[in-house]
């Protein structure tokens, strides 16, 4: 437990960063699912993605604990263009301070209508990834900047209040 993980990202590309226009597709995907399957369907999509698509990440977190979580998010944000994020950890907690969310920044730059509940996906996807590893996540803020805390599931902390996650918009 807690030795340094060898590879932080489970799926690797040949280029160091992704193409920002894919944020347009991510936002459009959320809108399509919200329109067709409703809020419950969209939240199920996010949770299923965390449980299934990101299962290799969750497994790394089970093995390496907070060190694995911190290393994953550092590598993740290094590969996202336009981000301004710091990742810190102590023995029990990993904290992401997102000063500039790359997705919200690009959607605004492209003047795209942002799905208002866009920022909720960070909670639902990450919670599904963290739970099998014995962690939970709390998101505070959104709409371009936020803090995300990954805590042991047995930590004495109130459950995520979705009202703490700011609705996203163009402004």
């Amino acid at each position: 437990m807690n030795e340094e993980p060898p590879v932080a990202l489970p799926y690797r590309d040949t280029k160091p960063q992704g193409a920002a226009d894919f944020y347009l597709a991510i936002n459009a995907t959320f809108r399509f699912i919200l329109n067709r399957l409703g809020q419950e369907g969209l939240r199920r999509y996010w949770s299923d993605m965390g449980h299934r698509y990101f299962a290799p990440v969750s497994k790394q977190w089970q093995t390496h604990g907070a060190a694995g979580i911190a290393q994953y998010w550092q590598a993740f944000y290094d590969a996202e263009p336009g981000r301004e994020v710091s990742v810190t950890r102590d023995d029990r907690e990993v904290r992401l301070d997102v000063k500039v969310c790359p997705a919200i920044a690009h959607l605004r730059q492209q003047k795209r209508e942002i799905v208002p509940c866009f920022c909720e996906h960070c909670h639902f996807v990450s919670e599904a990834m963290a739970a099998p590893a014995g962690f939970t996540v709390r998101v505070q803020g959104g709409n371009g900047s936020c803090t995300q805390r990954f805590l042991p599931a047995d930590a004495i902390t109130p459950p995520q209040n979705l009202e703490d996650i700011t609705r996203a918009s163009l402004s």
Partner: protein
Amino acid sequence: MIGCYDFCGHYEWTFAWLEAEGGHNLVRQYWEEGISRDSQQHARELILSQGFAGMRTYWGHTLDHEAAGYAIHANEEVFRIDMHACPSKGFLIRNGLVQYRDYCDHCMGWIGPVMQDAGFVIDHEHNHCGQCWWEIRREESTAGPSEAGRLAGEADVRLHPGWNEQASPHDRYHQATDPDDKCPPQPPSS
């Protein structure tokens, strides 16, 4: 957060998730409404307003940005793309990601509706190994697909190694705009 670095991975996973939720029609609707009309509205606007010139602007930018190995040849009659190493399918192959039965269908799924609305039809073939070609003509054109090498010379993907991998069946389209409008299976072209 869901990122853009591994976008093609969770995009492909999403096709399978949608199919499980609502069947094939929901996947088709996603490609047309979610991708063609929403995500790719910038491509749609360029092509509807500028035709072939809009295609060159869109694909020149996008494929450069995705670092693709590709070639574009165009004249007044046809716009042709030869994709030698699709960055999107390549990502999936390298990472062993296969959740949906035919990832390559998504391109016709979103490009087809754009071309239909803009008054074009598509001849297309892909080999499921990251190689494909496209010839886009005005819908009133009666010309068929070009012979290998005639339009694109040595850049024609049909002349490249790996095009006719026997283990990989090809999908073909003729004057199509619908992802399900595939030609009956036949041996790979030479």
